[in-house]
């Protein structure tokens, strides 16, 4: 089973062989760790001799790099690569003045995983509304088990509460963006999040992006799991299950899903339905300074081909082309992924958004909200700070 998440090896080998067949040239694939990716993109992309020819770009960085002219105009290939069937929200964050620069590579989404045994023991049902979720989380909560495990600074999950109550991170007026944390609906969502965190999560207030599946699995020697409920990206389900030594290599552990013990459901909306979650996934673009524009375009054709899109789906990565979404399969995980992805929302397509993310202001803000601070004054304070960065390139 591919471990999903980043592009597994099977897909990389496919790209290399196909590229060889199509052009006779060799394709080298390098993975950039998150910590250093930004510094490398900022230095390599503008440099014709050392730029990657094609690069994946997170959809939260896509507006920033597209607007500064880092990528080649590929509007002429738009229809050939999939046209309107491509995920429109992702296409929009890679578009400037109607021209396409970055297109969707794959989408991911987040949904809830829970312990059926703990829910049954506490006599609670799967919630259908967000307030209900807080109630059952409080019932399930005790000192050793979080009713709903959520890090204090984990804004990529926390932002769903802002979206669910109709708020947003920022609003656009004209070509300027303005942070909208102190918008009444956003405040309502943040207060609901604050109540959930303070009453039902044991996670540290400074935790931003932990590996949540560790908390829902029952660790060896531990009586029970650290959490009754977690929210995680779709591909986390490969790491959730009963832990046992890996038959192939006993120094490692392997989690095998167990339907009696573990379950998944989509984050419910405020009055039912589906709450919008933070849209995972990324875009892909050709570097404007690359000297191999033709070769890069060949690779794009291969990536947007039916075969590769379906390979993405088979590995739990949402294909960019809606025609091939069925390749995700129809098990509970595929259904949850598609259903949650439908309503998912992207971060603001503002020029300075990569800067806002890099500044750590959102982690700081959500950390202070979840630490029990006064939401309205914090929102106003951080709106001002974010506004200084959000339109800067």
């Amino acid at each position, binding site marked *: 089973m591919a471990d999903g998440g980043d592009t597994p090896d099977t897909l990389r080998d496919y790209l290399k062989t196909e590229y060889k067949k199509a052009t006779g040239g060799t394709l080298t694939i390098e993975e950039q760790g998150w910590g250093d990716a930004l510094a490398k993109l*900022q230095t390599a992309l503008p440099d014709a001799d050392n730029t990657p020819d094609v690069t994946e770009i997170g959809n939260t960085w896509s507006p920033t790099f597209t607007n*500064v002219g880092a990528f080649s105009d590929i509007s002429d290939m738009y229809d050939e690569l999939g046209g309107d069937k491509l995920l429109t929200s992702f296409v929009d964050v890679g578009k400037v003045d109607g021209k396409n620069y970055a297109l969707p590579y794959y989408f991911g989404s987040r949904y809830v995983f829970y312990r059926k045994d703990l829910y049954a023991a506490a006599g609670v049902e799967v919630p259908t509304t967000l307030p209900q979720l807080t109630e059952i989380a409080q019932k399930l909560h005790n000192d050793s088990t979080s009713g709903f495990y959520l890090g204090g600074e984990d804004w990529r999950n926390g932002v769903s509460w802002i979206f669910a109550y109709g708020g947003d991170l920022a609003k656009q007026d004209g070509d300027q963006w303005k942070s909208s944390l102190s918008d009444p609906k956003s405040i309502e969502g943040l207060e609901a999040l604050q109540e959930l965190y303070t009453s039902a999560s044991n996670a540290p207030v400074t935790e931003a992006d932990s590996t949540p599946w560790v908390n829902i699995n029952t660790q060896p020697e531990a009586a029970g799991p650290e959490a009754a409920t977690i929210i995680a990206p779709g591909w986390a389900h490969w790491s959730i299950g009963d832990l046992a030594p890996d038959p192939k290599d006993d120094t490692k552990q392997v989690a095998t899903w167990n339907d009696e013990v573990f379950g998944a459901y989509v984050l419910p909306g405020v009055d039912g339905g589906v709450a919008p979650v933070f849209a995972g996934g990324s875009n892909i673009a050709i570097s404007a300074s690359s000297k191999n524009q033709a070769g890069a375009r060949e690779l794009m054709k291969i990536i947007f081909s039916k075969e590769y899109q379906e390979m993405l789906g088979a590995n739990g990565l949402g294909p960019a082309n809606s025609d091939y979404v069925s390749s995700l399969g129809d098990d509970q995980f595929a259904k949850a992924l598609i259903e949650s992805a439908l309503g998912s929302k992207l971060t603001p397509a503002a020029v300075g958004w990569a800067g806002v993310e890099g500044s750590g202001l959102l982690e700081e803000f959500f950390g202070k909200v979840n630490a029990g601070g006064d939401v309205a004054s914090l929102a106003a304070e951080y709106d001002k700070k974010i506004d200084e960065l959000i339109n*800067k390139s």
Partner: protein
Amino acid sequence: MSAPTRTPARARMSSPAPGPRIQPRRTTGVPYVLIVPALIALLLGLGYPLIWQIVTSFQKYGLSQQFGKPPEFVGFDNFANLVWDGEFWAVLVRSLLFCVVTAAVTVVIGVLMAVLMNAVGRTVRLILQISMLFAWAMPVAAATTVFIWLFDRRRGVVNYLLDAIPGVDMNRYDWLGNPLTFFFVASVLIIWMSVPFVSFAIYAGLTQISEEVMEAAQIDGAGAWQRFRRIILPMVRPVLSIVLLLQLIWDLRVFAQITLLKDAGSKSGDFDLLGTYIYKLGTATGDFGMASAVSIVVLLVTLAISWVYVRELIKEDEAQ
């Protein structure tokens, strides 16, 4: 009876060393030829970057300039934004506090360690020196990783040991979770890494003091503390002052350890020191003009604080 206060040691900083009298050579070209290689190396490695940094600190230089848009001269705007930016002063004060405390404790422990090395028998001294070497040799990334592991909330040894003490409940205590304990861990890590260099340097100074002087003081009934204060300290002072200055400079510029500790802790700005603050301004938010301005201000502040001391060092250097 009193022990000679001006021990005729070769290394007295303030008095010209009795040995070498630098005769004023005919001002041949030799010294210039000798410093040329070092100058070239400095110019090649730092010339362009320094000029670029000074120029950029007067420009609006963001990501679009990195991708070819011509940078705009903005005069002292970057510096002005800095002065009015409350966070910069908070980070500066925090960094100064951190480096003074860390450097002071490092040097104090270093001196005590050196005195200890000097006082114990050969084998014990060797054991101490070898363990210092191992600690000093451990790469920064490896040592920081281990410290994060030791102070880990769930599996850390520190919590495990403290928990074992009856009446102490440190279970799941999040050391990297709040600024005070975060900087305590950072300080312990940096002290642990820096003491070896300091202790070896001071120990080197101690072995200079001739045995007779120490015996004479002991026979005169000077207690350990008096011997330390009246003989050892004055003797070691030159090494001490240089090592303290270097430790202050290095601890003010600390970056790798704080970045890795923050990765394991919080991304919030309350945990930034100057190094991570500048990196955040530059890379993370893409405002390279501002990052350059901050770097220059940090240089000027460091110089201002150490100027009295630096001038004295230069004066002594002249006297030699």
